[in-house]
């Protein structure tokens, strides 16, 4: 294949056509039974069946993926789909891959083929699904930690909860490599969010040439940035700055990176479904753990500790947030052995709703 010339590209290009219609992408059993499904049954964390009113069945094998995929790997998945699934494949909203077939005998074959290619089956039901994450050092300017590396290290450790072991309820892990949170970290059962901890340093000589001052001032959520006319630059009020890095995004000479101070916080107890308690935000469990690549052992063991404390203590069908609501945050800190610090006490937008207004609590 050769690149199109400028003229060829101009002649060929179309605009505003949108994506292909989904009906062209559906396996025949899905098209036939669209909107007419009766029930489903989960066999294992990696396999399930959906049964239609017509009696038709579609078996699904769900497999893990690291989200970053080389074209070569996707082709290997497509080959499996051609061999066993009549040439159709699907991705889930949590970056898992789904192979669907009407032939039950294909299920173990698909599972084996995917596992041989390096993508193990799992992620359905009361356990872990894939960990949603962001770009990290692979591709983002504002990352305070890597994303894929932390996810790989964490998922290696809690792997059995993806493939076979049960938890009290489904548990959604997520990771964001900065507070922009390009992923549902703020409403996940257990999530890692990378943070900066120091006021950025300004290279004033470069600010003059590279940055628009009003935009830079406007980017700050806490109004910590003001003009510095003498230097034709800006200054930052250290009492107001909470290190979000928004200014760095619009003005690169305001450098937020501090490799020895950057790291991650761990938040827990969020969910998005309305089941039982309704959607919940994740709350701060651990304010800071240093970056320790390539495998971040301190973060991995903190995640495992929270997950296993929950697994041992929660009632069936209780999500992490529901479990903590029932036992109380004071018990959460006691049972997990996590230290409670000033950082845990809110002083931002909704602080007063989080202070205790009852004399009933636990020791």
């Amino acid at each position: 294949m050769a690149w199109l010339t400028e003229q060829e590209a101009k002649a060929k290009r179309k605009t505003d056509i949108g994506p292909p219609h989904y009906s062209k992408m559906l396996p025949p059993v899905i098209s036939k039974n669209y909107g007419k499904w009766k029930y489903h049954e989960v066999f294992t964390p990696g396999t399930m069946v959906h049964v239609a009113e017509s009696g038709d069945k579609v078996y699904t094998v769900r497999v893990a993926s690291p989200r970053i995929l080389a074209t070569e790997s996707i082709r290997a998945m497509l080959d499996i789909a051609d061999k066993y699934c009549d040439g159709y494949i699907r991705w889930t909203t949590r970056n898992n891959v789904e192979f669907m077939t009407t032939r039950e005998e294909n299920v173990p074959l698909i599972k084996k083929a995917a596992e041989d290619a390096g993508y193990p089956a799992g992620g359905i039901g009361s356990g872990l699904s894939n960990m949603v994450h962001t770009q990290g050092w692979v591709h983002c300017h504002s990352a305070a930690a890597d994303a894929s590396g932390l996810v790989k290290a964490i998922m290696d450790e809690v792997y059995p909860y993806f493939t076979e072991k049960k938890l009290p309820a489904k548990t959604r892990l997520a990771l964001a490599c900065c507070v922009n949170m390009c992923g549902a970290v703020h409403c996940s059962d257990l999530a890692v969010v990378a943070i900066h901890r120091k006021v950025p340093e300004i290279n004033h000589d470069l600010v003059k040439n590279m940055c628009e001052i009003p935009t830079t001032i406007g980017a700050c959520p806490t109004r910590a940035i003001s003009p510095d006319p003498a230097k034709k630059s800006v200054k930052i009020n250290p009492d107001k700055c909470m290190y979000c890095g928004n200014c760095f995004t619009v003005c690169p000479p305001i450098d937020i990176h501090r490799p020895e101070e950057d790291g991650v916080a761990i938040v827990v107890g969020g969910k998005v479904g309305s089941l039982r308690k309704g959607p919940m935000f994740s709350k701060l469990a651990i304010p800071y753990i240093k970056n320790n690549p390539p495998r971040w052992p301190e973060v991995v063991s903190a995640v495992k500790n929270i997950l296993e404390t929950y697994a041992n203590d929660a009632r069936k069908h209780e999500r992490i947030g529901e479990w903590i609501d029932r036992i109380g945050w004071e018990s959460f800190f006691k049972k997990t052995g996590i230290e409670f610090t000033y950082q845990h006490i809110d002083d931002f937008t909704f602080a007063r709703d989080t202070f205790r207004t009852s004399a009933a609590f636990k020791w």
Partner: protein
Amino acid sequence: MKKYETPLLNELEKGPWPSFVKELKKAAKTSEMANDEVGQLEKSFRDKRGYWKHGGIVGVLGYGGGVIGRYSSLPNEFPGVAHFHTVRINQPSGMFYKTDSLRTILDLWDEYGSGLTNMHGSTGDMVLLGCRTEALEPLFAEVTSRGWDLGGSGSALRTPACCVGKARCEWANIDAMDICNDLTQTYQDYVHRPAWPYKFKFKIAGCAVDCVASIARADCSIIGTWKGNIAVDQDVVKDYAKAGMNINAEIVGMCPTGCMSYDGKTLTIDDENCSRCMHCISKMTKALRPTGERGASILIGSKAPIVVGSLLSWVIVPFMKMEPPYTELKELAEKIWEWWDDNAKPRERIGEVIELKGMRSFLEAIGVPPQPQQVLAPRKDPFFFWKDEDLNGKK
């Protein structure tokens, strides 16, 4: 091709979970760009920091989004990632693919880019990770001439996303995939040409389980629901009990409204008190199903923390019928955008503007009356406004 020593990244090729490092290295076998991505990433792991500059303005002619500029801050050391732009390809609703259709994109990406992808990005697009500025126009022509298009970025309508919906889920109350596709096609101009104060996202979930995190991640959350009773198949309830389910503890005892009872033989639901949370239905899917009218609850405003704290979406329209061509939904969306555009400062999401201007001002502007379903509780303080029309008894 330059050979990089990667002792730190090599550690992440070990272990049972699929390795992103293996993926990077697969692409690096044939792509200089992917190879330099590996080299730069190893340096990031060593120095504990990223080496990317924020993107400048790059894109394709006539569009203001769909491509996110990305440049290495170390272009001399890693020339392959000097340009490493992201191209967002709008996914088909539901993320089903015919294999030959997806192969077309892969072949093009090997030719024009790094061979690295994200399947998928957080908003739902297929993300092609890493190409040079001069590749954008020819790649765009190749992609669009084969029936695909770019997704949204910047202060635009972001690529709408949905759950699997009626394609393979018995709980879907609305045709999430069709609504998603319809909105995407109707508002192509808003997707491709950023014209708003900030981003705006639609996510469509078939039920309150919300597999697309619509209530947490969409400025406009469309969540399927019903008005009617839950039909109970008592024989199947007995099967669940026989199979070992403790119906009183797991179903009745966990019902948030206490609207269920079970005497060991019959499961009874007081439907008037049911809040349709989906707990019982999700645990006893063979025995319980909604009946009656189907539609969606429309919620507004959710977002991640930047700038003034994260928000979950708020109910504005408790129930709306969802039949093609979804005119009522579109009219509502257009009123929402008009009010937002009139009232927002740059980089203010709709939820933040509602907080600043007040929910009343917003609801009046979009023509939605006050209803108790919109609030958890009425206000507790006695500080409230009266307008002339309230005093004149017009409202």
